[in-house]
């Protein structure tokens, strides 16, 4: 069992079961888009994506904490930053041609869905299984480096057999 766990850890991707449905699991620090990751401050994100097209600052009705929304490239990218100006949630990232890297696996927004079958076989199979029931894409379970937090999860949305967007999920 220990050897097996180590093996999956070295691979960077493991699998987890939820309601007998299997997903691949990733470390949240191992996802980046155009070089930025969750937890990065807004400056470095703006550096990677250019001038925001929309900015909003408010207080969350839910957590009562200050948050900021930045939108880039028209309305195709929406990012939420927490009160410390750290990237907290990728609400959606739909801008074609941008590089997504997860666990050293790279693909572009707009790539053929076939790449995901190779990179995340468990989540891909689940997606195929759940497609008729309304699944819009692959679901990846996230976990933090310290292993304590259950994790933030990710969606990779598929449209017309192409990778359409990436978003992080932090359910309330």
């Amino acid at each position, binding site marked *: 069992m220990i050897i097996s766990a180590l093996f999956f850890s070295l691979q960077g991707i493991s699998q987890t079961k939820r309601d007998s449905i299997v997903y691949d699991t990733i470390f949240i620090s191992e996802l980046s888009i155009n070089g930025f990751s969750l937890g990065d401050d807004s400056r470095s994100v703006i550096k990677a994506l250019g001038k925001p097209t929309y900015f909003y600052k*408010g*207080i*969350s*009705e*839910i*957590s*009562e904490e200050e*948050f900021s*929304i930045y939108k880039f490239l028209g*309305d195709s990218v*929406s990012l*939420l930053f927490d009160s410390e100006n750290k990237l907290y949630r990728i*609400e*959606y990232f*739909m801008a074609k041609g941008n590089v997504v890297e997860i666990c050293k696996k790279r693909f572009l927004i707009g790539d053929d869905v076939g790449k995901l079958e190779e990179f995340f076989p468990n989540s891909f199979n689940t997606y195929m299984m759940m497609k008729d029931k*309304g699944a*819009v*894409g692959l679901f990846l*379970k*996230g976990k*933090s480096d*310290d292993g*304590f*937090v*259950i*994790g*933030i*999860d990710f*969606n990779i*949305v598929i*449209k017309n057999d192409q990778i*359409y*967007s990436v*978003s992080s*999920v*932090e*359910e*309330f």
Partner: protein
Amino acid sequence: MAGYMPLQRQVGFIYDNPNLFIIAHELGHGAFNLRHTFSPESFIAAERTTQNLMDYAGGTELWKHQWEQIRDPQNIWFAWAQEEGEGEMMDFNMSEEMILDLLKSIRKANANSKDELDLSFFQLSKGSKLDVEIEPATFWYLGISTNSGEKVLSSSELSFHPLMINPSDFSKVNCEAPKGLDGRFMKFTFKLYSPTLPPRNPGYYKTEFNAIEITVNSEWEYYLEAYLLNKEIPKPGDQFVNMEIVPSGTHGRHGGVFGCTRTSKTNCSNYDNKYENPGIQSGTQFHSGVDVRASVNTPLRPALAGIVFSVTETFTPGVYVSESLGNKIIIRSTLDDGRDVYIMYCYLNEVNVNVGDTIKVGQIIGLTGDTGNAGVRPDGTRGCSLERLHVHIEATRDGVFFGGAARIDPSMFITTKFDRNGNQINDN
């Protein structure tokens, strides 16, 4: 009143030493759809001026057109659709007493766990009343019709079929408002059960014909269902018996029960002081309500009766708005100790009340939903996955929710209790 047998009924009754005239007269109504000779529908002569059987002078004559009607079955097939003022010494439209009798019969049969109930006495009946009281509810509209709907038996067929139903087998659908009324209405439909024929064992099978239709204003349909099934009428807090708490989100910041939620930074051990001593728990997260699982458009009933304090209904169902609780209703209730409590219900798709409305327990105040950050983002993903959709419920003593310091655990007003992990600990 000497006798009573409505048009085209196979049942009726005769009072006090019936004579052959009364029996024949009532059979004329019931079996052959004959009207009074003085009926405004087919007026021939004034009341008590002829010797016709269908007059009140005690005669036994039947005239040609009546014999023709008796011989022609088509005349009686659609008698149910005609005015029901004939055949009795008083207005036949179901009285409130008859309506309640029918409902009581169904309730009693369910109390005795009966699978079959013969309601032939109510064949071809129709009636509706306003402000019908069945404690503790007052139905402002309650309508009943039997043997009606799209598919009905002909009157001649009805004479072979008792009005048999299974008292616990009914369907409920939203329906159009009765003529002249506004609002949302629900129709309960019981199907007709018909006797099985040999060689099958004696019994009844369900047909596609409607036996009983009960229409009620939908704010109270839950009461009616409980009443018919002989279940206890809801009391404060009972709306959430057997409710299911949605577990905390995957990140642990939100969701689940009132109180601390886990984060990467801390175990959050001092949650009890969160609102009394704001600021002392830097880095902790706190869930300020209780999340009760509910799929989109589930009718929402409040935990406590009260008066609507505030409503928000500007959000569009399914449209994602970051960090927002969407459409909300806040109801102020006064507890037995005289203190007020304000309870807020969030993420609603529909708000059915206005500020100042008095709300009773069990009344539908809106529909649950996916407004605010429960909605769908532009890329098709949901802020809250379908299996986690819920009503977020908060409670406070002073009516201040956002940023307030007097919030309390709403689960204390809900019958079902949960521990810190969301496990149900009792089910009163």
